[in-house]
């Protein structure tokens, strides 16, 4: 038996198939993973992501400290509520974790990091907090529900008191606001519009039931994985880890190189790799032959072998897609070793799907 979120009994009541995920008992699906995927692309689905770790960082030194710890630059967050996606790097430029940082106000930030990396992230943050004017506080009492899909915000707005609705519905992408007890962020991991709502754990079941009543369908981690893959979003531990840099993980866009004087952890190593040219890159793959891409399959390219990091059937495309780490010189046409046969795959630029629509050429 693993750890349980405040919504565990809701999942049981809904007949979820539960699986271990990073030490947590989490819903894989509530019947059909593919149906749940389509619901998010077409209407509205919700995910219990309370296993994710919320960390508040406060104090006069918080801003400068995060500018050293994160490869993206929180100084870009000028207005309270603004958020950014970033990697946290080690000295070698390897990715310790990817996370979202919210700017709440002067000296006041909120980080949302992965569940599976919780212990090492907290240890890293605490270690570097010594001597800095910051207080790093985990918020395990908070739950988190992601409500995603084209009608997600409209349906979820019913959770909010009248006085907060207009504020929440006016949030632009990658912006958040505290709406009473609910911290509402227009972020997500599906490629669809929606909110991620952070709220007190003891209020989570009530909110979940209200969302159900509003027609939002419960969705499990299975659909979350195919949705994020179609959306071209990396999964930590599969698509990048401490042995890969953002430049080798399709995440160069998240690194803030300017101002050049900002000395974030990992910068020197990353700069050296940038100057020399990263030897590997993460690409999107569309399998052209019949079959299913899976993690760890060998990718054969004219420039040498690579490896699939994430692969699945993509319900929106009815094709198999994936990410692969390949030599920098790999061309557009590659082959994937699936059970001893070399099948044709094409390198494509993610995202594969956004806002319900295919974004790649299928033929």
């Amino acid at each position, binding site marked *: 038996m693993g750890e349980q979120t405040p919504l565990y009994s809701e999942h049981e009541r809904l007949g979820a*198939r539960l699986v271990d995920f990073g030490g947590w008992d989490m819903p*894989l*699906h509530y019947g*059909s*993973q*593919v*149906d749940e995927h389509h619901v998010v692309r077409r209407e509205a689905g919700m995910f219990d992501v309370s296993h994710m770790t919320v960390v508040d960082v406060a104090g006069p030194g918080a801003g400068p400290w995060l500018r050293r710890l994160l490869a993206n630059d929180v100084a870009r967050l000028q207005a309270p509520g603004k958020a950014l996606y970033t990697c946290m790097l080690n000295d070698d430029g390897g990715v310790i974790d990817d996370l979202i940082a919210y700017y709440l106000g002067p000296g006041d930030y909120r980080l949302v990091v992965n569940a599976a990396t919780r212990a090492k992230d907290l240890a890293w943050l605490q270690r570097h907090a010594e001597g800095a004017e910051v207080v790093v506080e985990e918020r395990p009492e908070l739950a988190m529900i992601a409500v995603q899909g084209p009608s997600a915000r409209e349906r979820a707005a019913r959770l909010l008191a009248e006085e907060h609705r207009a504020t929440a519905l006016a949030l632009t992408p990658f912006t958040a606001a505290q709406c009473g007890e609910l911290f509402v962020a227009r972020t997500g991991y599906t490629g669809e519009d929606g909110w991620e709502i952070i709220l007190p754990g003891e209020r989570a079941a009530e909110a979940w039931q209200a969302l159900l009543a509003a027609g939002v369908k419960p969705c499990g981690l*299975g659909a979350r*994985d*195919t949705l994020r893959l179609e959306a071209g979003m990396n999964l930590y531990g599969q698509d990048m880890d401490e042995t890969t840099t953002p430049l080798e993980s399709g995440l160069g866009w998240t690194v803030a190189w300017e101002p050049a004087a900002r000395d974030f952890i990992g910068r020197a190593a990353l700069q050296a790799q940038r100057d020399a040219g990263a030897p590997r890159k993460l690409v999107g793959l569309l399998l052209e032959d*019949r*079959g*299913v891409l*899976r993690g760890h399959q060998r990718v054969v390219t004219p420039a040498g072998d690579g490896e699939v990091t994430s692969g*699945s*059937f993509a*319900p929106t495309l009815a094709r*198999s897609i994936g990410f692969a780490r390949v030599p920098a010189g790999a061309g557009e046409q590659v082959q994937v070793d699936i*059970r001893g046969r070399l099948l044709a795959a094409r390198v494509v630029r993610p995202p594969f799907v956004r806002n319900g629509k295919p974004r790649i050429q299928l033929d």
Partner: protein
Amino acid sequence: MSNIPSDLKYTRSHEWLRQEDDGTVTVGITDHAQDALGDLVFVETPEAGRSVKAGEACAVVESVKAASDVYSPVDGEVVAGNEALAGQPELLNTDPYGEGWIMKVRPAASAETPTLLDANTYASTLEE
């Protein structure tokens, strides 16, 4: 509870087998197996004419999340793979004992009778 028809034979690896009047056997995966795998999205069936041994992996079923082998319950020669599954792998979910069959095998004349389970015994393996 999963559906386990009493007129079929079963393996511990969750295949079912139906003895046909023409001497062939039809093979598929059980309702329990399809439920455990989840939504099936790809099936690779063996080609007609292929010789198979009991216990040999000869088909692959892939759900959204993972690939699983399907083992032949008998020695013999594949007479047909279910080509409908190429376009409609979900037949394995919706009709595992009917349209979702995977292959037909003609058992080798010399084949020893393999150890197959009846429905009650198979049901008891699911409770273990």
